[in-house]
């Protein structure tokens, strides 16, 4: 059990930032992202404890739980996206306030557009350009060919560009 705990602790350390970021970009609220992220890992740990061999790809498994929780969250709250006043600031080292305000507003626009994309598209964009996963890894996680993933990314980027 100690070894299991240690292994899952490593899985947690490796994936907590990514899962939190993935959820935050969908729900746009720090407290909700924290709730859903901790629920994701709690469910992950419960499954892992029972049979860790069932989980072949921990990140993919955790992303799946996160996606399901986000779906449930929206089903309960309706389709209205809640914009929280205390959402996590995007850290910008640039001290020029005017430039910072302009950049932040650009990023807010992109964040809103990203959250509004269909799931396949937003997921692919997050994995590829934010989490820097290679195409091969995304292909494995989505059970698609690498060619199909490239096409998906191209379409997702085009759609996002149209929305902003």
């Amino acid at each position, binding site marked *: 059990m*100690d*070894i299991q*705990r*240690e*292994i*899952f*602790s*490593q*899985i*947690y*350390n*490796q994936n*907590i*930032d990514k899962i*939190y*970021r993935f959820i*935050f*970009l969908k729900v746009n609220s*720090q407290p909700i*992202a*924290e709730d859903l*992220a*901790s629920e994701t*890992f*709690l469910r992950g*740990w419960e499954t892992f404890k029972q049979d860790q061999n069932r989980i072949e790809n921990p990140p993919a498994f955790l992303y799946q739980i996160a996606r399901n929780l986000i779906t449930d969250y929206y089903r309960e709250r309706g389709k209205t996206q809640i914009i929280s006043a205390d959402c*996590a600031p*995007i*850290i*910008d080292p640039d001290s020029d306030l005017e430039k910072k305000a302009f*950049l932040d507003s*650009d*990023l807010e*626009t*992109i*964040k809103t557009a*990203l959250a509004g994309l269909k799931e396949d598209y937003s997921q692919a*964009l*997050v994995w590829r*350009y*934010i*989490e*820097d*996963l*290679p195409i*091969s*890894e995304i292909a494995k996680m989505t059970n698609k060919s690498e060619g199909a993933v490239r096409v998906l990314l191209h379409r997702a*980027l*085009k759609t*996002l*560009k149209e929305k*902003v």
Partner: protein
Amino acid sequence: MTKISENELILKLKEFRKIKPREEWVILTRNEILGKKESAFSPFPFFSFFQHKPAFAMVLSLIILIGLFGFTQSSLPGDILYSLKRAGEQGQAFLVSDKEEARYDLEIVGKRLDDLTRITQTKSAKKLATAINELQASVSKAAGSLAKTEATNNPEKIKELVLEVKRLEEKTDAVKSLGIEIGQDEQLNNALSYLVDCQIRDLENKTLTDEQKAVLIQVKEDYQAGNYSQAMEKILLLNQK
């Protein structure tokens, strides 16, 4: 928002990498889910007898520690003192900077491979199973550290990682030659793949000479073929040119 190109959009998406959870929340959540680790072994069971003579207790504790340290270094997975050895390694890990974490974790994988080699000679099936579990845990940790390593053009850092990976490959071959099948770790391969992919994309954005471009093509071929350590060696050469 003014019209934006795809490349500009990608650059802006990358800005979202700065979104991170609160550190205190991360620690709290981990403790809540996994529970705080409690030490089941106290190296100082008789300490209470010396609470009135603290100086003596400290000297005695120091002597016990030094003695134990010598014994723990040679302990193997499954031995009573092995948990102390691991505690010592974890203590050292706290002192390692973020930049050195990946290299340190790869060193630990090397130590687990050494443990596995020694256990094979004892022919203890129970210890072998424990040693393999320990190895897998250390590989998983190293894979995580490698994945967190920021893409860097620091040739020294890349060189250290390449050398560690090569040492591990040699030790793995030695273990396999003893008849132990430890398999290829997908997480570590994924982490190495990610590191190489970062380096390739970094190099694609640079101005390269014809000679460097030719080497980059070879790096991509190695990457496609899954020969990540060879790809990293060539990247190292490219960064030195």
